[in-house]
C-alpha cells in the first residue's frame, strides 16, 4: 500500500490539507457522530426533533397513567424472566424441591416450576413478587388514571376514541391479570378457574359447549394451562402493547389536556418540552416506580402459592378471593340471590351466576365507553375541549362518577365479605344483606350528596371571588362599628375560580312545526331536554367581570359575606347588614 505514495511525489504537496470527507447532511450537522450516521440512512431526525420539542403540562395527576405504563413495562421485563423457568404443563410430578411442607406431594409441573422459581432459583421469588405487585399496581394506576380523566372531563371531544381505547385496555388488563394468576396451578388459582368454568356454563344455550371448548373437555383437563399461557404471554400482551401504543400516539397527536390557569387556553399547551425537562422527569419517575415495586416486593409477600398447596378439584380454601380487580365481579356473584336460577323444560337458566359473571363487566365497560357520547348528547356540547374541568364545576358528572365508585366499592367489599366478617366480628349473613341493599341505595345517596357538595363548593368559590378571603383582622371604625377585613384574591388564584364556562340546560324546541304537526323526533327531544335540565339543575354560574366590578365598587364589600347569589349579595351589602 505505502509503496504507491513514493510513486506519486505530487501527493506530498497536499500533506497540509484537511482530510476530505463527504459533505455532511443537514441532520448530521446538528447531530454528528453515530446519530448522524443513523439519520443519514433512516432520517429520524425530523420526527425525533418534533417529539423532543413536544410540550407536556405538568401536574401530578397527569403522571398516574405513567405509573401504569411503567408498571406494565416492569411486568413485561419480569415476565420474560419467569418464562425462562415456568413450565406451562398440567403433567404430573412429585415435588422434591427445598420447601419442606410440600416435599413428596404430587402436583402439576406448572405448580412445581412455580415453586422452583420461588425457592430454588436465585432471585426467583423476588422477581415473581415484583411481577405480581407490578400487575396489581398496573391496574391500580390505570384505574386512578381513568378516574382522573373522567372527573376532569378529559374524555370530551376530540378524545372520545382514546377514552374507548383506555376502556378496552382496562378491561383486557383484568383478563390478562386473571390469566396470569391462574397459571401457577395452586389451590387458589385452580378454584378461580373452576369458578370461571362455572361462569361459562351459566351462559344460556351455549354454556356447556363454551366450557368444553375452552377447557378442551371436562374440567380441569390438561389443556387449560398451556392455553392460558399462550394467552397470557403472547396474545394479550401483544394486544395491550398495541393498544397502549395507539393510546400514547393519540395523546401526542391530539396534545395533552391542561388544567385552566392564566395563559392557558383551549388552543395552547403550557408546560415543559420533552427534552430535557420532561424526559428527565419521566425517566426519573420510571426508576422511582421500579424502585418502589422492587422494595415492596422485597418486604411484602404476595400470592404465597406454597401456602395454598397444589390444585386438586376436591378441596377449596376459606378466604378464596380473586385479585382485587376481580373482587367486584366476585362480589356481584356473592350478592345475587339463589332464586334467580330457573328450570324449565329440562333446561336450567342460572341467572344467579350469569348476571354477575357474564353480564356485569361488559355492561359496565359498555356504559363507560358510551359515556362521552351520552354526555355530549345531553349537554348538546359538540365543541373541542382541551382545558380540563375542575370536578366541582361539573356537579352532575362528578356525582355520576362518585355514584359509580360507590357501586363498585360495594361490590368489591361484598367480594371480601368473609374477610370482613372475621376481621370485624360480624355476621356474614348481615353483611351480605346490607350490601344487597347498598348496591342500589348507596349510589343514589352518593350521587345526591356529591352533587350538593359540588354546588356548595361552587357557591363558596363565588363568595371568595366576590368578597375575598377572611383575613381574621377586626377593624373598629370611628363610629365604633366592627368589621372583619376581607382581602381580595390575587389574580392567579381568582383565575382558577372564575375561568370556567357557565352552562345552561338545552331549550326544548317546539315539538310541533309551523302547521301544528308533531315532529317525528319530538319524543326524543323531550327526553333530551329533560335529561339536560337534570344535568344542569341548580347550576352555579361563574362570576362575571361585571359582578366582580359591582362587588368591588359598592363600598361595603367587606360586609356581605353570607349571601348566596349575586342578587342577594347586592341586597345584603346595600342594607349594610351582615
Amino acid at each position, binding site marked *: 500500500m505505502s509503496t504507491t505514495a513514493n510513486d506519486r511525489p505530487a501527493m506530498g504537496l497536499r500533506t497540509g490539507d484537511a482530510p476530505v470527507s463527504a459533505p455532511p447532511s443537514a441532520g448530521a450537522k446538528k447531530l454528528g457522530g453515530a446519530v448522524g450516521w443513523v439519520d443519514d440512512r433512516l432520517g429520524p431526525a425530523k420526527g425525533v426533533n418534533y417529539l423532543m420539542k413536544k410540550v407536556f403540562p405538568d*401536574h*401530578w395527576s397527569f403522571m398516574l397513567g405513567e*405509573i401504569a405504563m411503567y408498571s406494565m413495562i416492569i411486568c413485561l421485563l419480569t415476565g420474560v424472566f419467569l418464562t425462562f423457568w415456568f413450565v406451562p404443563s398440567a403433567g404430573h410430578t412429585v415435588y422434591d424441591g427445598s420447601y419442606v*411442607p410440600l416435599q413428596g406431594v404430587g402436583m402439576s409441573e406448572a405448580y412445581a416450576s412455580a415453586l422452583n422459581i420461588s425457592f430454588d432459583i436465585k432471585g426467583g421469588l423476588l422477581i415473581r413478587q415484583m411481577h405480581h405487585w407490578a400487575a396489581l399496581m398496573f391496574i391500580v*394506576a390505570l384505574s386512578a388514571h381513568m378516574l382522573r380523566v373522567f372527573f376532569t372531563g378529559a374524555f370530551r371531544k376530540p378524545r372520545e376514541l382514546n377514552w374507548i381505547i383506555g376502556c378496552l385496555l382496562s378491561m383486557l388488563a383484568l383478563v390478562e391479570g386473571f390469566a396470569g394468576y391462574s397459571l401457577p396451578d395452586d*389451590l387458589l388459582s385452580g378454584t378461580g378457574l373452576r369458578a370461571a368454568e362455572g361462569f361459562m356454563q351459566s351462559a344460556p344455550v351455549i354454556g356447556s359447549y363454551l366450557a368444553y371448548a375452552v377447557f378442551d373437555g371436562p374440567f380441569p383437563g390438561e389443556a387449560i394451562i398451556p392455553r392460558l399461557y399462550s394467552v397470557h404471554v403472547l396474545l394479550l400482551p401483544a394486544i395491550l402493547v398495541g393498544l397502549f401504543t395507539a393510546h400514547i400516539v393519540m395523546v401526542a397527536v391530539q396534545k395533552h389536556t391542561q388544567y385552566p390557569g392564566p395563559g392557558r387556553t383551549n388552543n395552547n399547551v403550557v408546560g415543559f418540552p420533552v427534552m430535557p425537562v420532561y424526559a428527565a422527569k419521566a425517566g426519573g419517575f420510571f426508576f422511582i416506580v421500579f424502585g418502589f415495586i422492587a422494595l415492596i416486593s422485597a418486604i411484602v409477600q404476595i400470592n404465597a402459592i406454597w401456602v395454598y398447596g397444589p390444585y386438586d378439584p376436591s*378441596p377449596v380454601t376459606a378466604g378464596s378471593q380473586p385479585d382485587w380487580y376481580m373482587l367486584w365481579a366476585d362480589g356481584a356473584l356473592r350478592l345475587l340471590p339463589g332464586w334467580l336460577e330457573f328450570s324449565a323444560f329440562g333446561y336450567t337458566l342460572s341467572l344467579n351466576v350469569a348476571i354477575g359473571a357474564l353480564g356485569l363487566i361488559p355492561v359496565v365497560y359498555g356504559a363507560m365507553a358510551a359515556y362521552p357520547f351520552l354526555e355530549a348528547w345531553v349537554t348538546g356540547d359538540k365543541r373541542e375541549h382541551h382545558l380540563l374541568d375542575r370536578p366541582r364545576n361539573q356537579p352532575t358528572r362528578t356525582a355520576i362518577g362518585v355514584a359509580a365508585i360507590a357501586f363498585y366499592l360495594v361490590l368489591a367489599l361484598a367480594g371480601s365479605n368473609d374477610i370482613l366478617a*372475621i376481621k370485624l366480628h360480624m355476621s356474614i349473613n348481615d353483611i351480605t344483606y346490607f350490601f344487597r341493599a347498598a348496591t342500589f341505595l348507596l349510589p343514589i345517596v352518593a350521587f345526591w350528596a356529591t352533587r350538593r357538595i359540588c354546588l356548595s363548593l361552587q357557591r363558596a368559590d363565588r363568595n371568595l371571588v366576590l368578597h375575598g378571603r377572611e383575613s381574621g383582622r377586626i377593624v373598629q371604625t370611628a363610629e365604633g362599628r366592627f368589621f372583619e377585613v376581607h382581602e381580595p384574591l390575587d389574580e392567579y388564584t381568582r383565575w382558577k375560580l372564575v375561568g370556567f364556562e357557565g352552562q345552561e340546560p338545552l331549550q326544548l324546541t317546539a315539538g310541533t312545526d309551523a302547521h301544528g304537526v308533531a315532529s317525528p323526533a319530538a319524543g326524543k327531544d323531550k327526553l333530551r331536554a329533560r335529561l339536560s335540565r337534570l344535568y344542569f339543575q341548580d347550576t352555579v354560574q361563574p362570576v362575571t367581570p361585571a359582578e366582580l366590578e359591582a362587588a368591588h365598587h359598592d363600598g361595603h364589600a367587606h360586609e356581605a359575606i353570607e349571601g348566596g347569589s349575586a342578587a342577594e349579595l347586592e341586597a345584603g351589602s346595600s342594607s349594610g347588614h351582615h
Partner: protein
Amino acid sequence: MNALAVRRRHPAAIFILLLLGLIVTGAGYAALAPKQATAATASADQIERGRRLFLTNCATCHGKDGLGSPVGPNLAGVGAAAVDFQMGTGRMPMAEPGVQAPRGKKVTYSAEEIADIAAWVASLAPGPAVPDAEYTTAEGGNAGRGGEIFRVNCAMCHNSAGAGGALTRGKYAPKLTDVEGRHIYEAMLTGPQSMPVFNDNNISPESKRDVIAYLKTMDEAGSPGGMALGSLGPVPEGLVAWVFGLGILIGAACWLGQKGA
C-alpha cells in the same frame, strides 16, 4: 425551639405528630400489657376434686350433674378430651354468652384443675380420652401427607394457611397458628362448637399426627416472601396496592410535579 416553631405549620407536621403519638401509645402498651400465662401440662385424676371444681365453676350453665341446661350442653359422653380442649385453650368457662366461645386470652385454671374436672366429666359416661403424647407432637409425622389431608378436610373453613375463616351468622373457624398439637388433636376428636368430629375412623391417629406436623412445619417455614399480611390472600394485597402503592407513588408524582425547570 425557634426552628420547631417555624415548622409547626408544615403540612407534614400533623402526620408526624400522629405517628409519634401512635408509636408512644403502642410502645407503652407493649411494655405494660399483661403477659400471657402458660399452663404446664400434668395429669392427675381426682374425681371428687373435679366434681367440686365443676360445681363452683361450670354447673351454672351445664347443670349440677353436668347433664346440661337451656344455656349449656349436656356433657355426658364428651370425654376428658373435650374438657382438656375447651378449658386448656381458655374457651371455657365462657366469659360472656355469644355465638361461639372465643379462644381465651389466658387460661385461668391450672393443668391439675383441668385434669380434675376432665376426670369427673369422663366418669359421667364413656368418651374420648386426652390423646397419647405419641400422636400430638409433630415428631414422626409426614408434613407433606398432612398438608394433603389438611387441604381436603380443614382448609375450607380454617383457610389453607390456617389463618381462619368465616362461618354463618358471626361464627368462625379460628386460626390455627400457635396452637398446641394436643389441642389440634382434641379438636379433631371432639368437634368443638361448629366443627365436625373427625374420629379415628375418618382420620387415623397417624394421619392426625401428620396434620399436626404440617401445621408445625408451616409455622416454622414462616413467610419467606416477607410480611404475610395475615395470610388472608388477595384482599389485603389489593388494599396494600391501593393505600401504600398508589399513595407513595402519587407522593412521588407530586414531588416531581413541584420540581419545575
